[in-house]
């Protein structure tokens, strides 16, 4: 816990205590012991959503694998929207990051000879996904968190909610934040601020994401004039549990699980993903084929199957079946125990004996705060890494197991850039910090905390926003549905202005926190819908039924959403191509 000082300040302030944030903090504390580093998070670090990642983290380790293969899989998986210089950095640094985690104690699953095990993953040509059974994110996060405890230099602000970035003289100089426990608004000065706040899957009604994934950091940057990049690219995972949206890991398919429709057919063969092999075939599951195709294609296939009436009808929506019975109880318990644990607990189905009902579910945002490959944004002093950022290594579709790698590689890199920046600027004045906190407190008292309300509630606006995005900006979109969603969001923003809280106490006011989160959700919802409306092509996870083809001449570009008066302004910038010219994405038995 932090000890209150007259003025709180750090050379580097990390916002967010998940995988990217903790990796960044360790990079500062270990490699720059004279640099003061703070980690501020709205939850205790071990509650961060990295904890929910299951399947693994990609890094080349087998002698038969190569960095170029990992890069090619990532770039083709991204539908050529990833920046290839960023992808090269990702794959080149991935293995060292995994080994570093190992040296910090991560309980990676092992082969009998004691070397770390790797498993195949969707869209990857070879086995290169490191895993700790199917709780990889949990172990990765706790290993990082426990390692941070070694460094007294890392000062944590647990359960503080950042409400704004302090920008003066054209650079970011800290944040204003509420200490949730006391309700006090304070400023924390910093020479460099690193946003590691995760994604915002909660803007959709049905998501694998925990309640904290509300896009707060993306919104902070957006409001400070930094563009949000490629926000139209939202990943639907093909295998969520109906009802809750709890994730059934892709590792279930890596280990041999298959997807079946209501006719008992392995329907992915009908969607250009190759031919199924017999379950007893030693080559099953074949890489980059069928169930090991990329997530965008698998989720799109689910929608087509539903439209054709070949999904099952359930109380919690249509579903297909994920069948892992042929793996047997022993392998299921050894390799993917959490799959069994979750299915038994939440839907009462033991996958040893019965197939698991699954449906598509919002999982990840490829888009985020526009950064360069060092994690720097267009605002001096502001850096970002992890899901909240868009470097971009994921382009139009992220491959499973690249995100845990990304948070480590780019969390560490953002720290390097933040330390470098901090060495060249000075800390903000106490006067700036005090006036920033005061004006932020006044802003809240004039809006959310004012006394007279007009009857709008957080939950009412939030569920309308979620419905609008699902209806208009789901797996398939078109101009009409997107137009409608954009105009609904404008209405919701007006309703948000009338929102008044019932809870006016200062102590642990979770209604205030959810209202602030809702403000961020409206920002990123706006960026998603308008970016999707402007991109009149189909690429990766962004499928426009009115523009079904990829259009490299017009849209081999990143979209950039800038907050403006009224609707956001959408600009573009070129994708960086190094060695892999745009080509056709080919999956299946090739």
């Amino acid at each position, binding site marked *: 816990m932090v000890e209150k000082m007259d003025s709180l300040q750090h050379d580097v302030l990390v916002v967010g205590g998940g995988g990217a944030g903790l990796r960044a903090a360790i990079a500062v504390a270990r490699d720059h012991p004279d640099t003061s580093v703070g980690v501020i998070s709205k939850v205790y670090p071990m509650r961060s959503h990295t904890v929910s990642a299951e399947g693994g983290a990609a890094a080349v380790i087998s002698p038969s694998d190569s960095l170029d293969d990992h890069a090619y899989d990532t770039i083709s998986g991204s539908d050529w929207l990833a920046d290839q210089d960023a992808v090269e950095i990702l794959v080149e640094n991935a293995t060292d990051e995994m080994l570093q985690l190992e*040296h910090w104690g991560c309980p990676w699953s092992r082969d009998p000879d004691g*070397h770390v095990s790797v498993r195949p993953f969707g869209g990857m040509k070879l086995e290169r996904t490191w895993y700790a059974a199917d709780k990889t994110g*949990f172990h990765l996060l706790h290993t990082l968190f426990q390692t941070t405890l070694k460094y007294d230099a890392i000062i944590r602000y647990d359960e503080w909610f950042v409400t704004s970035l302090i920008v003066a003289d054209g650079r970011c100089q800290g944040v204003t934040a509420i200490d949730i426990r006391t309700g006090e608004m304070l400023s924390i000065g910093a020479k460099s601020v690193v946003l590691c706040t995760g994604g915002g899957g909660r803007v959709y009604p049905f998501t694998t994401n925990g309640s904290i994934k509300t896009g707060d950091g993306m919104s902070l940057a957006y409001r400070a004039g930094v563009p949000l990049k490629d926000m139209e690219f939202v990943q639907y995972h093909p295998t969520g549990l109906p009802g809750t949206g709890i994730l059934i890991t892709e590792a279930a398919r890596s280990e041999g699980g298959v997807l079946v429709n209501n006719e008992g057919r392995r329907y992915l063969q009908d969607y250009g993903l190759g031919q199924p092999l017999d379950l007893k075939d030693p080559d099953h599951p074949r890489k980059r084929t069928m169930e090991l195709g990329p997530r965008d294609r698998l989720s799109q296939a689910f929608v087509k199957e539903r439209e054709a009436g070949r999904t099952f009808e359930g109380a919690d929506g249509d579903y297909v079946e994920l069948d892992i019975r042929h793996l047997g109880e022993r392998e299921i318990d050894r390799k993917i125990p959490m799959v069994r644990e979750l299915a038994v607990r939440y839907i009462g189905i033991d996958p040893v004996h019965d197939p698991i009902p699954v449906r598509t579910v919002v999982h990840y945002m490829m888009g985020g705060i526009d950064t360069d490959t060092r994690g720097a944004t267009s605002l001096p002093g502001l850096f970002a890494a992890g899901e909240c950022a868009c470097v971009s290594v994921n382009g139009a579709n992220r491959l499973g197991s690249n995100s845990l790698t990304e948070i480590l590689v780019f969390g560490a890199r953002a720290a390097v850039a933040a330390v470098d920046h901090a060495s060249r600027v000075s800390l903000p004045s106490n006067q700036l910090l005090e006036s920033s906190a005061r004006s932020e407190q006044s802003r809240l008292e004039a809006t959310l905390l004012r006394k007279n309300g007009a009857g709008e509630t957080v939950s009412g606006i939030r569920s309308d926003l979620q419905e609008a995005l699902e209806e208009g900006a789901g797996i398939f979109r078109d101009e009409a549905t997107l137009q409608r969603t954009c105009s609904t969001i404008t209405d919701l923003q007006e309703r948000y202005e009338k929102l008044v809280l019932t809870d006016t106490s200062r102590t642990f*006011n979770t209604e205030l926190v959810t209202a602030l989160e809702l403000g961020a959700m409206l920002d990123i919802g706006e960026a998603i819908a308008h970016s999707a409306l402007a991109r009149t092509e189909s690429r990766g996870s962004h499928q426009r039924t009115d523009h079904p083809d990829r259009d490299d001449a017009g849209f081999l570009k990143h979209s950039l959403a800038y907050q403006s008066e009224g609707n956001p302004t959408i600009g573009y910038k070129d994708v960086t191509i190094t060695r892999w010219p745009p080509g056709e994405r080919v999956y299946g038995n090739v």
Partner: protein
Amino acid sequence: MSDRTVLDVYRYLPDNESEPTFQSYELDYQDNWVVLDALNHIKAEIDSTLSFRWSCRMGVCGSCGMMVNGEPKLTCETFIRDYDTQTITIEPLSHFPVIRDLVINMDDFMEKLPRVSPWLIPDEDKPLEDGEYLQTPAQVAHYKRFSMCINCMLCYSACPVYGLDPSFTGPAVLALAARYNLDSRDDGMKERAAEVSAHEGIWECTYVGECTQVCPKDVDPAGAIQMLKLSYALDWARSVVMPRSSGS
């Protein structure tokens, strides 16, 4: 299928109230609802001032522990249908100060955790170029169970020793010390001794075993503490028999 139940919820706002009260919320619930779903329903539809922590709603982030009918539970894993009582009582986890409503103050745990050095302390640092430390599946299995702790605080809430003496290091922190002591890559057992093998550490545990009973992740802190007692006792015995070889 929907049914009706009453949640009797502990409310306390220390700023304004001298003591806690209980508030009843009657609501329809679905067969597949966990207690956390009901609390979220209350917050969204009935009373937005009710305060509690939650996030992943899949039993891994460790945020949503509460007393449900007097037992410490992760509310995201506790189904309403499993209670046949007319009302279900929801209280903050026992043995912790309350910040507000169902939100406990866990500063004590956060302060104790770093004291047992819960990080890998290798014999000598190995450069990354030399690759990973080899560890067989059996060596992983040796400590794996104790690495599964999600820091949910249920074991502290169940532990009668911690209830009587908050200076006790407590189950989850000691289980994490065991997790690293048992890791074949680790050589930090002696470094952890001052905290772990102190009176307030393992020796205060009376092996009631409640911690293991309530652990939602099957970590077995009671077993971890027994193993620590044995290993530190052996270490002490060795130091008596062979004082020069044991180090200090």
